[in-house]
């Protein structure tokens, strides 16, 4: 009986200890260190390094949680911390999980009180320009490449490089003619089943992807009209 009691106590103690460890881990997740200095912890940096590439594609103007502005992010900061840092549930597939440096930055910024600016003249919010690099970083990477890239669900229509857009037999970009370019036709399609990015996946579930804004469509059109040279 004595040995059985000791055994039961050991098992019970181990269980309590493990649970406590798990809870501690959940409330104090092991975070990769941030490579950013305290003076760089501001919304603009977090937006360009984390929110835009990994969140805005779904959390834009689609009607759910909007993370496009500082005000809307600040309101959701607890949920962001819980879902991203603690539970690691966000971002959802097909968007790739946050890299260590993104997690480190986001965590450091939240722990610093999620300041809008760092008081040292932080980098301005990136502006969308009619160049391929700008369109790629602010639109394609955010709303397209989680599907339209090698290894992804629609790898047969890659949108990774400028050559992918210009050389495609689908006439994704017809230099000089935005209205004949497949990308403009796709993002302005009035048929919700054909509009890109899709509002629903193959199972009929909401993807969370925001349609391109008028400004985004205008900038892509301008780039194409100008010949899509750079």
């Amino acid at each position, binding site marked *: 009986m004595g040995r059985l009691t000791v055994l039961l106590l050991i098992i019970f103690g181990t269980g309590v200890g493990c649970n406590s460890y798990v809870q501690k881990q959940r409330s104090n997740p092991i975070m990769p260190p941030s490579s950013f200095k305290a003076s760089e912890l501001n919304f603009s940096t977090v937006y360009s390094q984390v929110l835009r590439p990994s969140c805005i594609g779904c959390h834009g103007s689609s009607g759910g949680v909007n993370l496009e502005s500082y005000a809307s992010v600040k309101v959701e900061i607890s949920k962001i911390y819980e879902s991203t840092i603690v539970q690691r549930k966000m971002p959802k597939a097909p968007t790739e999980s946050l890299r260590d440096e993104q997690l480190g930055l986001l965590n450091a910024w939240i722990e610093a009180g999620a300041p809008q600016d760092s008081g040292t003249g932080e980098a301005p919010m990136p502006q969308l320009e009619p160049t391929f690099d700008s369109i790629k970083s602010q639109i394609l990477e955010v709303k397209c490449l989680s599907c339209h890239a090698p290894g992804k669900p629609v790898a*047969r229509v890659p949108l990774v490089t400028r050559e992918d857009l210009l050389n495609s*037999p689908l006439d994704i970009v017809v230099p000089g003619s935005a209205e004949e370019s497949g990308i403009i036709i796709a993002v302005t399609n009035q048929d919700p089943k054909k509009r890109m990015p899709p509002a629903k996946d193959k199972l009929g579930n909401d993807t969370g992807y925001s349609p391109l804004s008028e400004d985004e469509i205008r900038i892509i059109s301008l780039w194409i009209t100008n010949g899509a040279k750079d």
Partner: protein
Amino acid sequence: MKLKNLTILVVALFSLNAYAHDEVPGQIAISKVTELGVHRIERLVTLKKIDDTFRTALVAMKVERSTENGAVYKVYGYEAPGADGSASVLTLWMDVDGKTLSYTVTPGAAPANPAQWPDKDAVSLFEDGLHFVLEGWVQHPEVKSFYTGLQSIAMNQIQDAQGQILAQLKVTSDDDAKTLTITLKSDGTLVSYDIK
């Protein structure tokens, strides 16, 4: 000596496997050309260069190799026939990459009684059927001969036991004496396929 022979045999087997499929190196599969043809039909309709009936009443496509007009492939898209039995035909001349070089429409009577699709349109259903051929052969190797040698694809509307509308696409191939039948729901999702 035995090891040397075995090595030669293994290398030969791997080499054969590398060229196991019938595709021509550097050329896209003819089924891919057909899929690009479907996309081109939709684009021409969107740009109002051909009639919208090619989008809603497309019933068949055919593809063949060609040297006309500087092309490598010739793709035909057929509408549902009109009251007099004639049908409009779109002909596309495409290059080695499946890019359309030129096209023409041979007019026929307006489709007399085209199938009504409650969800996706006809051209989208063709697209979904061809996606199965293009991607499905990897998991279903018996479909590969239709991927490499697609000759034609024709669609008609059927109903299942519950009265649900389905799209039935019949695919023929130069590389297979049998016919591949793909059945899709009206939203384009795969129901079944068989080869007979």
